[in-house]
């Protein structure tokens, strides 16, 4: 008979060792894989991406900016740049490194894979939005050209990634960047948000925390060197210019920015009803299609009819059918801002 105390010690030691190795993301195995992936090819590709982004945003890249982007030393960055030149992807002139045509085509292919993968995660999977970018950073180096094209075909050749960035075509075509940074919007003017930059992640998280989303109308209040103040529906925001510059808007003169905050379906008390304005952009892919198919389209009047015994979900009368939606889904569904008259049974338990 094995001594039980000994057996337990051995078991917990084994369990601990397994956790140490196999823990998702932080385990030894995950770290090793990450290190192993940091091959020269990955560095070259990341460097190309950096040069491409700098070129597009007209902020010339330097070996220092590259070192920052790749999180390597300046010496290492110079080595990578030398490698790029050697392979004909970049050349140096007086302004620093510049992409050659071959380098740009390569960079576009990486960007295409990255954005396609984000689109894929948003539309076809349940991966949380916060994880999209990180996942795509890995996949962009992994997928072959053929795999990327197969994915694009399966996804129906999507044109935009979930952050509003256009996906380059297989031949490297890309529409000219539209819109201006939010910081450039004149006070008093209105505009629609068309893009939220997802890099660096800290800034992106800040934008999401502010409740900013694609297709949202904004009105500039004041643009000072230290702070940008602007309004969205029923809310005033204040951001540092460096953060606000990551929001791209297209000015639209006659846009109406509402005074009251937007209502969502989740705000309806039992027995109340409201007309749908739209579904938030945060709801994508299969989720969005299902809601649309159920008849949640602009103009549909929905009534909250039944609250489950546990309080969530709530059953709504949508186009004659009684459909239960979870709170998170109900929050995606935006309603007209004026509350409809309290109709019918007022015996709700809210």
């Amino acid at each position: 008979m094995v001594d039980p105390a000994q057996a337990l010690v051995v078991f917990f030691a084994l369990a601990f060792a397994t956790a140490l190795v196999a823990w998702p993301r932080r385990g030894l195995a995950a770290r090793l894989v990450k290190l192993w992936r940091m091959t020269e090819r990955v560095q070259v590709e990341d460097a190309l991406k950096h040069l491409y982004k700098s070129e597009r945003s007209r902020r010339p890249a330097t070996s220092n900016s590259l070192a920052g982007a790749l999180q390597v030393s300046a010496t290492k960055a110079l080595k990578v740049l030398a490698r790029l030149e050697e392979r004909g992807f970049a050349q140096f002139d007086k302004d620093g490194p510049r992409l050659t045509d071959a380098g740009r085509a390569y960079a576009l292919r990486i960007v295409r894979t990255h954005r396609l993968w984000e689109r894929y995660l948003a539309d076809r999977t349940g991966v949380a939005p916060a994880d999209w970018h990180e996942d795509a950073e890995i996949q962009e180096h992994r997928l072959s050209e053929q795999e990327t094209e197969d994915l694009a075909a399966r996804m129906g050749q999507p044109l935009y990634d979930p952050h509003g960035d256009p996906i380059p075509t297989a031949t490297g075509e890309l529409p000219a960047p539209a819109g201006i940074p939010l910081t450039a919007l004149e006070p008093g003017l209105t505009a629609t948000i068309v893009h939220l930059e997802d890099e660096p992640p800290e800034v992106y998280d800040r934008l999401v925390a502010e409740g900013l989303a694609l297709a949202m109308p904004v009105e500039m209040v004041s643009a000072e060197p230290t702070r940008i103040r602007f309004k969205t529906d029923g809310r005033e925001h204040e951001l540092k210019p460096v953060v606000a510059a990551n929001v791209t808007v297209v000015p639209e003169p006659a846009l109406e920015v509402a005074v009251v905050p937007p209502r969502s379906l989740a705000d309806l008390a039992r027995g109340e009803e409201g007309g749908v304005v739209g579904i938030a952009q945060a709801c994508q892919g299969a989720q969005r299609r299902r809601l649309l198919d159920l008849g949640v389209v602009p103009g549909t009047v929905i009534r909250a009819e039944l609250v489950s015994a546990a309080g969530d979900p709530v059953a709504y009368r949508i186009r004659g059918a009684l459909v239960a939606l979870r709170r998170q889904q109900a929050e995606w569904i935006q309603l007209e801002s004026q509350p409809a008259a309290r109709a019918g049974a007022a015996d709700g338990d809210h």
Partner: protein
Amino acid sequence: MAITSPAPCRGCAANRAESLVQLGVQPDKWDYFVALAGNPNTGKSTVFNALTGLRQHTGNWPGKTVARAEGTFSNEGKRVKLVDLPGTYSLQAGSTDEEVARDFLLFGRPDVTVIVVDATRLERNLNLVLQVLEITDRVVVCLNLMDEARRRGIGVDANRLAQELGVPVVPTAARSREGIPALLEAIDRVAMGAVELRPFRLADLPAEVEVAVAELEPVIRESFPELPNARWVALRLLNADERIISAVRTGEIGVLSNEAAGREVPVAESAVATFEGNHREVLDAAASLRWRLSPTFHDALTKHIYDEAQAIAGRSMITGLRRAKFDFDRKLDAVLTSRILGFPLMLAILAVVFWITISGANVPSSMLATVLIDNLHPVLKGAASSIGMPWWLSGFLFDGMYLATAWVVSVMLPPMAIFFPLFTLLEDFGYLPRVAFNLDKLFQKAGAHGKQALTMCMGFGCNAAGVVATRVIDSPRERLVAIITNNFSLCNGRWPTQILIASIFLGTLAPAHLAGLLSAAAVVAIAVLGIAAMFFASWLLSRTVLRGEATTFSLELPPYRPPRILQTLYTSIIDRTIIVLWRAVLFALPAGAVIWLVSNISFDGASLAQHFVSWTNPFGILIGLNGVILLAYIVAIPANEIVIPTILMLTVATVGLSGVGSGAGVMFELDSMAEVGDLLRAGGWTVLTGLNLMLFSLLHNPCSTTIYTIYKETGSAKWTTVATVLPLVMGFVVTFLVAQVWRLLA
């Protein structure tokens, strides 16, 4: 392929044969074939059964290309094939179900498509009708649930609706067969081409879409001049529908023209010969036009279809009827989902169902056991020896294969035959969706769907049936979670083991008058532990391996409907009981053979079983079990029902007791619990062994019937492996920990 075709559709039926086989339709003989489409909860299966007269119902396991069920019936002297498509809200091909339905309508080209429509939810149902009408002209709308509509004071003018849609509309109440003859007649007339069809087609699309369609349509027409639905194809290309793109690329889309033109052209030739070279243009045009559309044009398109549906529904409703109050439904819902009464009522109803099942199954179970095991088995053995069959053959056939099967049937059949119809009745009445509604919050926290509560309950009857029942969960990730964790529901094959072992080893720990109570509490605790394990595994899975699977939640609460007792009995026995039983029998036969063989094949002076038991015994002891139990669980993979008989037989064989049992490889049970206890204790069992057997009986791999069903349902070896290994690992860990702690404390 032998398909008899009458005049009206000779060409297409012959052409279609091959693609239909690809789509999963049985190549029977038929004169014309009909597809049945519709929203979920519209009584589609009732219409199916009303048309085929129940007799032709063939349950079909779903797969990527297989429709749910198919049947044949005769109509006006012709043989008609009816294919039931999955119930869907739309044909946007956003889910597997929608893809199956859409591909079937488009490439299967049914002679008639019957769309079952809920008369009380006309707008939402018309959304689907309008989408189908874009694909095919040959449509009959079955305006079902007219009885319900009348009860609620909702009037629909079927003639007006027919005018609006341009296809026949037949009001029915399939439940009472009202309108079914008229429906049959309409189907026949459309199939024979005796009706003029002018289907409603979407016009005046949102401006940006209209511009793009107007540009693309002529390009398509140029390449495929006879295509009947070029506008729809244009829309799908703009939506970058991969299936349509590939159909254009290969020219397959061209076959749709043949039907319209009534010509007989073999599929492959016409496609390749006529259309090669033209398609590139179409695809390029579509690709460049897509850049001009806003990313949300699909939203606008859906809104447009709904606006049209609303307008048509508005014009077809009969106004001025006295609107009945929805009193009954509303009041019942208010009670059944109320904060105070909701959960107690639910527990009470489920308790009654389980009580009826357990107490009702006892009698038929022991009757079956008496007949099959006590009476028929000796008769068979006797007959075998009287015709001079060698002992090893009769042992192999009757002691092995026959006995295992008989055991499985007698233990498994009665509870399933009681439990499933009861459950189906609750489902039919509309209560089960409310259970899911009430419990969803709990399941949501574990990353699962409220409907998993239902599949879990079904699992208490039989895990294989529970796995099949997960089809009601239409969100991919949540369905996988429900499939993989169903095994944590203690199925009725395991209840007898639990009760027996609890009574022998735990009941005796308490004073005599409390013994029954303690062992009952222990069994319930094990079942509750199973539920806890289910939540834990669901939570773990949805956060790790299933993190990336897509999720869509929606839970429709259909109105309460009086259940149809007879039909429910029929379908639940056919669909659930018989199919599951058949699979169990298929697996029990070889298992019986193996049990007999390992006990009777010997080398080095001991049987295979004895070798294995002594080899695994150290590991078994380590985790508080023993080698006999481990071997029993390996050979009894086909069905948990035979675990105890196998353990008894193996214990006798390995301990070398004489005077008990029926010989090597012959399973048996003892009449008195005390005898079983004595036998097991003689085999070295302690309270710990009993306790750990109960735990291991809950936490081990699913039976092979369930494993096979999981594989059929998921079509994935990976998920089948996860579902098999995960509970086994949990079982080993839990029994190991319990054993060590027990030994430390003892």
